[in-house]
Structures are given as C-alpha cells and as structure tokens.
C-alpha cells in the first residue's frame, strides 16, 4: 500500500512537474540524427570500399604469385625436356659410334 503523502510532498509534486523542453530541442536532435546517419553511411561506404580494395589487392597478389610459380614450373619442365633430348641425342650418337667401332673391329679381324 502506498504511503500517504503530506502537504509538503504534494507541493513538491506540483513544483516538480515536467518542464516543457526548449522548442529547438527536437529540431537539434533530428538534425544530429540526420548528420550521424549520414556520417555512419559514409563510414560504412568507406569500410566497404577499403574491404573491396583489399580483396582486389589480395586477389591480384595471389594471382601474380600463382602465375609466377606456374611459369617457373613450366620453365623447369622445358629445361628438363631439353636435357632429356640432349641425352637422347648423345645416347644415339654413342650407339652409332659403338656400332661403327664394332664393324671396324670385325673387318680388321
């Protein structure tokens, strides 16, 4: 049960009635809100732009590294092919020379 209030408390209630807010308060609040929203949108746009730029940069860097690795692998394969070809040619030349030497040995005997 609420406690009964005396005259002094009743006078306090009357004295402490809500005061009307200054007429400009609402306008200031709405202006600050608009400004803050625009600021927040701007910050969000800058954030997404930075994120997109970072993703693009990371993609380009990743692509460049991958391409460089593939290029090095391709060059390595080509060099190996060349070495094998040289070895095959040398092998073929040695075989021919061997055959000629064997034929000459047979003729001299």
């Amino acid at each position: 049960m609420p406690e009964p209030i005396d005259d002094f408390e009743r006078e306090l209630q009357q004295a402490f009635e809500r005061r009307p807010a200054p007429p400009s308060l609402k306008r200031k609040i709405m202006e600050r809100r608009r400004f803050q929203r625009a600021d927040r949108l701007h910050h969000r746009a800058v954030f997404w732009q930075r994120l997109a730029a970072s993703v693009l940069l990371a993609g380009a860097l990743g692509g460049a590294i991958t391409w460089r690795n593939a290029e090095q692998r391709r060059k390595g394969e080509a060099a190996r092919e060349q070495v094998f070809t040289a070895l095959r040619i040398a092998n073929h030349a040695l075989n021919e020379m061997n055959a000629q030497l064997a034929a000459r040995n047979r003729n001299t005997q």
Partner: protein
Amino acid sequence: MAHDWQPDFEQLVDEHQSMVFSLAVRMTGDRGLAEEIAQDVFMEMDRNLAKIESALHACFWLRRVTMSRSADALRRRRVRGFDLWVEIEEDHGALEEGRNSPLGARLENLLATLPAPQRAVLVLRYQEDLTPEEIAATLEAPLATVKSHLQRGLKLLRAKAESQLKEYIRRA
C-alpha cells in the same frame, strides 16, 4: 529476443523530450548542459533502438540513461574543477533576490543545493511519481539506499524550506 513493437524515433522524441530535459535540468541545474544531455540521450537511444522492446521499456530506458548521463556530467564538472559551490551560492543569491518568484521555482532552487544522490531520488519520486522500487531499478541502486536518500533528502529539503521560504517559515 524478437518483439513486435516498432519504435518511431520522432514520436519518441515528441513524447519524452520534456521528461528527459526536466530530469537533466533538475539534476544539473544548467539548462544548456541539460539540453546537451537530452540530445546525447536521444542519440544513444537511436543507436540502441533495436534493443528497445516496448513503449514502457523506452520510457524506463530514457530515465535510466538520463540519470546516468546527468551524474556523469556532474562528476566531470567536479573533476574539471568547476566550482559547484560558487554556483550554488549564486543560486542562493537568486533565491534571495527572487523571494517573490513562484514557490515552485524557489523549491527547485533549494533542490539544487542537495547532494546529487538525494536530488536524484527526489526528482524521480516527485517529478516522475516513481515508487522507491522503481527508483532503485532506474538508478540500479539497492532499495534500502534509495529509501534512505529519499528520507534524508526530504528531511533536508523540508528543513531548508522552513528556514528559507516565507510560506514555510509561517507554517513552521
């Protein structure tokens, strides 16, 4: 938690600006600062609008944040070395000069001389018509502390009124 209530910020400002401003001005005794506090409180509400669940919750939230912001402003003012006592003395001066001003205004001047915690509970009790339990929830303070501040504040204010306001001097 999902809730159906769709808050309309502009409508909330319309409904509660007077309450927020009055609480801030009675807590700080400074109209300019109170206006700044009111703006900050509504900006904070705008940021937290999604968390507000009902009209009642909005009102409770605004009261709690206004009281907390006002207490912060008073603390900052003390830290900055603002001479509150000089201001209160000036208020007394105004009181002396304004003996013929409305009783309400003079009671408000006396309220400004009370310690901040007592002022807070008295404002919530007599401006907002809150029960001690509701005041305790708003200020996030123990109920016993609120009741003690209410009792002491009221006693002090009554004593000051009886010694300084002619209407009460006659009665006392």
